[in-house]
């Protein structure tokens, strides 16, 4: 996850060129996406795996650094731990641009979907037809048997609760006291150890707010 954040930071200087200047609020309000041109995005995110997709120091049991913890309100000091947690995410050639929504409604129109709690329309006539939307789609890899739009390898070796050690001031997410595991989870492929699961997306996604 940290690597991904770094990747984004590196992209921005390249896109803006020589200098960065803050956008004023009114300039921000002018941004609606781009017509006629798009962005094609290829992304590789590795989480505690090497270039071959194999884990780095994650599967030796015990307190290894490949872990993610959740602590919930009113459950302070108790951590739901995902241990031996590693993986890889690939997004291949995702295209992003903008497009208006159709102006002819589908047979599934439900104006109440676009109402406020008080029952008022949040958009004109409670109908998003014609609104601008962020359009995303995967244009390639559509031959029979091709699955390469989004590839995901995930390993969660162990799941258990860990408790804060209040005597020694060690938070639960830094402990490995629970000897067992409730379950393990993997997203992978049967063709090779640690191969990512291959997925294909067809069609067009329109994302819009209201």
């Amino acid at each position, binding site marked *: 996850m940290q690597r991904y954040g770094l990747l984004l930071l590196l992209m921005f200087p390249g*896109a803006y060129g020589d200098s960065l200047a803050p956008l004023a609020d009114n300039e921000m309000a002018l941004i609606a996406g781009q017509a006629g041109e798009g962005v094609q995005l290829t992304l590789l995110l590795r989480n505690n795996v090497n270039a071959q997709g194999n884990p780095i120091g994650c*599967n030796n049991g015990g307190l290894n650094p490949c872990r993610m913890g959740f602590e919930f309100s009113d459950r302070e000091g108790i951590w739901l731990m995902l241990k031996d947690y590693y993986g890889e995410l690939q997004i291949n050639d995702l295209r992003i641009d903008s497009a208006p929504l159709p102006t002819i409604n589908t047979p599934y129109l439900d104006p109440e979907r676009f109402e*406020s709690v*008080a029952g008022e329309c949040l958009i004109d006539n409670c109908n998003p037809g014609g609104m*601008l939307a962020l359009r*995303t789609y995967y244009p390639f890899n559509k031959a029979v048997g091709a699955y390469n739009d989004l590839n995901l390898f995930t390993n969660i070796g162990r799941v258990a609760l860990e408790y804060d050690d209040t005597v020694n001031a060690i938070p639960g997410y830094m402990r490995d006291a629970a000897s067992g595991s409730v379950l393990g989870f993997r997203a992978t492929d049967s063709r*090779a150890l640690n191969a990512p699961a291959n*997925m294909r997306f*067809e069609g067009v996604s329109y994302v819009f707010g209201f």
Partner: protein
Amino acid sequence: MSRIIISGLLLFTLGTAQAHLQPLNETEMSAAHGAGIAVALDQFRYAMAPTSYFEQTGITPAGACTAAGNNSGNVGCWRRGDLRWYGVNISGTGAGGSHWNESSCDASTAACPRGGQIAWFSPFDNPYVMRSWSPQGMAWDGSLINQDASNPDKTIYEFLAPTRQPDYTFSFWGEIEAGATRDTATQALQMGQGANNPSGGGLLKSQTLIRGNAAGSIFRLFQHTEPGNETFGMFYHSYLQGDFRFSVAQAADNATDQIGEAPTFDPDEGLFFRNVDAFLPFGQVYYQALVLGPVGNNGDFYLELTPVPDNPAVYNRFYGLDSGDVRGFETARTATRDWQQACGESDSACQNYRLSHGYVRYGDWYPAMAGWNALGTRETVNASDDGIVFQARNGSTFNAFAKRPVRIDKRGENSSMQRTQNYRCDPNSPGACFTPTEGPVSSGPGNNNLYYTTDRVSLGSARIEGLLINQFYMESCRPGVC
């Protein structure tokens, strides 16, 4: 992780779209309230490779079996279990489609596991929506929440499915493996297979198809309101409608028992649930929620749908009793009678009832009772298009013990009457059919055997109405520990 990715995509668009931006005018800007993010999907299809899978891996249990077969090492013991879901697919229900080996098939029937694209799977004018929201509701202590829309007390996060959407195919094939010994982190799937069964019989491949939709389903996140338990709460109201098929028989021309290899499944065999309509409510805003908590102190946890509080303000809302009905019988009668009618706008009891009472309906037949007529059609004994159906593989038959009595006599089988029999007496004549000579004929168009040889048998329709979940508690239990 997904939130970070979405943010990243938006930022990247912003960064590179410098030259040709279309400005929004003031009217368009003022139209955005920030009340929701909608995702519309057109000509949509999602497919995992047939060899790709999600897996729930087991570990060696305490008290593990030490042998196979009929001996003491295989009695009263546990085996590790691994579950794999392969080739998860969301696709259309029309003509065109493919088997798991990519060969073509017609997805307009349940014989074909994967279909084509879905036009407006998420309609742009009735889309999947993510939003923060402040709906009205009742707290655990009985106080009303969010009564003033302009000054809400509590905000939740919710994910909404379309209220109406086209039918689609949701399918996967799966493996259940018993007794594996592999370390999934370091060994390929082909290693350490069910060692106690070298023939590979420790592996069962199956296929699951759903042809329908989940329109109306809602998932919410909010803070539970029970004092002392104000923790992360989840809410899921599940609506499912359509046909379901679970099958295990493989097609002869593309069968395989090799782990991780996708077979083609027989086009006909399986357990079918036709014309399913199911609503399961897990949680109520804001007095009942799915919450997590610890069990013991060695890593286990529970998932609980919290019990409805012992407070008349809350449980009367939960029960949704008709006016003047203190015991619930009349409420149940009217709710069952009026199941196809919308609640009146001012009938809060009816509205509350339908938020808290689930139902599961298999098949379209509905029984006649005093005050209303039967609906739908009773399925024949070998109906294929409605109700709960067991179907043999293509070209095969089986002996079904699906006796459907037309009259049960306490003296036993010889005096009772089965739908599959012909009789020497008039079953509608009082006093008839009581002597041995009046029993079923031994020959003729009927079948007086105790079983029924068929390629298919329908168990008929089933309806569960008024399903009220007061509390649900599930505890994780590491293998062999409890």
